[in-house]
């Protein structure tokens, strides 16, 4: 099945990426990277996939890209299982990996030529325009580009495929704030113009705030949160301290604030306990709370470390 961006746009809101009961275990000695994840990413959205290191973000993205076969469950890209029809699924995907994987000795222009030889319908002009917008020279070898420029070249190549789905596996890790902003600007522009769907793995709050309209949090291989960004922020409150007994609401997790104090994120979608003083949550609080929830015992380890000094 071939789905063009126009089809995707017309089916705005329909699930584009689905994961059903996906589990992945790399070895028996290690905890599973994914443990029964169900997820749907809808068309025309930029979804942030957030979680601590080892939460399974990359594994999930690589499963959709057809690189990591789930031990259990299924993944689909526009209804195509990449492990039954790898190339059918791959044709729908533009993939940007965590670390730039450009050919060091090839010039930027040659990367676009390479992409043309490999992918039918690769839109070289579109990719070129994206690079021109950022003043990235086409005649320079990839190893002479900064990390941010290399990430931009990868994104331009992914965009040039005109694939309806972009899988972005922490492409912003290690980039300076300006490079991150430019990257996200190009990403947003692409989604707006072409109706593309993007899944962006990141743990940076400002990235999610700038570009994403949905937030999915993974922790210890499980899905902890899957909400629109605005809904997620509205559904949580923050309480100082961590020894909480709530009449209403659910404690998500406690985490350190910037001054070393302890805050607790509370899910108030079921109601707010009037007896406990709370402040409204910021997106940062929501992300920190769920990142901490994905790393059980972290606060205890920090306390033990402080006590031991």
């Amino acid at each position, binding site marked *: 099945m071939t789905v063009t961006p126009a089809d995707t746009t017309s089916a705005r809101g329909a699930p584009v990426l689905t994961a059903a009961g996906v589990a992945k275990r790399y070895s028996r000695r290690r905890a599973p990277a994914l443990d029964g994840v169900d997820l749907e990413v809808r068309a025309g959205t930029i979804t942030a996939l957030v979680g601590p290191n080892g939460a399974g973000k990359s594994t999930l993205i690589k499963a959709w*890209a057809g*690189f990591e076969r789930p031990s259990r469950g299924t993944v689909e890209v526009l209804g195509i299982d990449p492990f039954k029809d790898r190339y059918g699924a791959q044709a729908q995907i533009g993939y940007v990996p965590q670390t730039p*994987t450009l*050919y060091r000795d090839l010039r930027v222009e040659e990367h676009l030529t390479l992409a043309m030889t490999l992918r039918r319908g690769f839109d070289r002009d579109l990719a070129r325009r994206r690079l021109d917008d950022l003043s990235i020279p086409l005649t320079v070898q990839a190893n002479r580009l900064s990390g941010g420029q290399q990430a931009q070249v990868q994104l331009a*190549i992914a965009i040039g495929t005109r694939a309806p789905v972009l899988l972005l596996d922490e492409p912003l890790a290690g980039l300076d704030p300006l490079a991150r902003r430019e990257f996200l600007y190009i990403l947003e522009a692409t989604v707006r113009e072409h109706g593309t769907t993007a899944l962006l793995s990141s743990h940076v709050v400002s990235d999610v705030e700038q570009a994403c309209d949905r937030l999915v949090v993974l922790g210890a291989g499980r899905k902890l949160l899957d909400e629109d960004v605005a809904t997620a922020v509205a559904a949580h409150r923050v309480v100082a301290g961590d020894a909480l007994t709530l009449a209403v609401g659910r404690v998500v997790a406690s985490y350190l604030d910037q001054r070393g104090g302890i805050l607790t994120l509370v899910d108030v979608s079921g109601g707010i306990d009037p007896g406990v003083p709370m402040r409204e949550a910021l997106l940062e609080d929501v992300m920190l709370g769920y990142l901490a929830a994905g790393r059980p015992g972290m606060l205890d380890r920090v306390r033990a470390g402080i006590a031991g000094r």
Partner: protein
Amino acid sequence: MRTTTWLIVRQHRFGFAMLAASATAFVIGALFLVWLHFGPAADCRAASLQPNLTDQQLFDIAARCEQYALPVQLGADFIGLTGVGLPLIAALLLAAPLIAVELELGTATLAWSLARTRRSWLLPRMALVVVLTVGLGVAGGLLTDWLTADLLIRGSPWESLSNYDSRGAMIAARTFLVAAAGLFGGALLGRQMPALVVAGALAAAIGMGITIENQGINRANMVVLANDPSTGMYGESDLYIENRVQVIATGEILTWDQLPMNSDPSSPEYQATYRDVSLGIPASQAGAVVWRNVAFYTGPGVVLLLLTLVIVERRRPYLS
């Protein structure tokens, strides 16, 4: 196709530079052979091959041609070494990193996420490397054939078993095996140095196995070699394996151990009963022997290439 080829060459410059250097060495070798064939040294060889030369005439020819002995020896050694060795080295250095470097540096992630199929990515690369390295092997084979024809035998090198194991089609076939082993090792291990070591070891092991098997087949098929009347020995193009003794009356072939204990080869009685014979493969079988060996080398090579396709199809595009 031209664009794809150019990009592959740009991506693997070191290996292709090695290939170009080998080709240059072969051009130098070919120039030497032209000199050997058409230059003054050729006159010396032609003169020495004239029939019924007296000792004095042979001495005169040797004295006149002494000045060419060293350059001829050096040139022959150069072709012998480069013709046999360079195709194998170039095949290993080009083939083993071809896939391994992409997996090691992660560029396979980019390429495989873009490619229509992994096979469509791999086949042009594989074909280019195999065609170029086998082409280099063919060139090395032709040079060593030519050298053999000019220095060692009188007839066609393709109808001769003289040094057949280190020249001609055997070099091309071995190069194919090494290239296939390199591609296989690279796809399997995904790291350049281990791929080079494993591919070299694998090709050497298969080559050793083929040599042992070939020797067994040759022994099983050896016959009494006819003597060349001009030398009284087996022909220069025959493949000699061993000497035995033939019972003249019955034609039975005996090993030296099977002779009676007190046999005296110088006695008239012995000479009336037995004659020494050389056993081996006659030159008339050269084609069959060479092509059998070529099949022995290309068979495992084809299997390794198919396995490479399967591995690339199934493996991750990065090191886990």
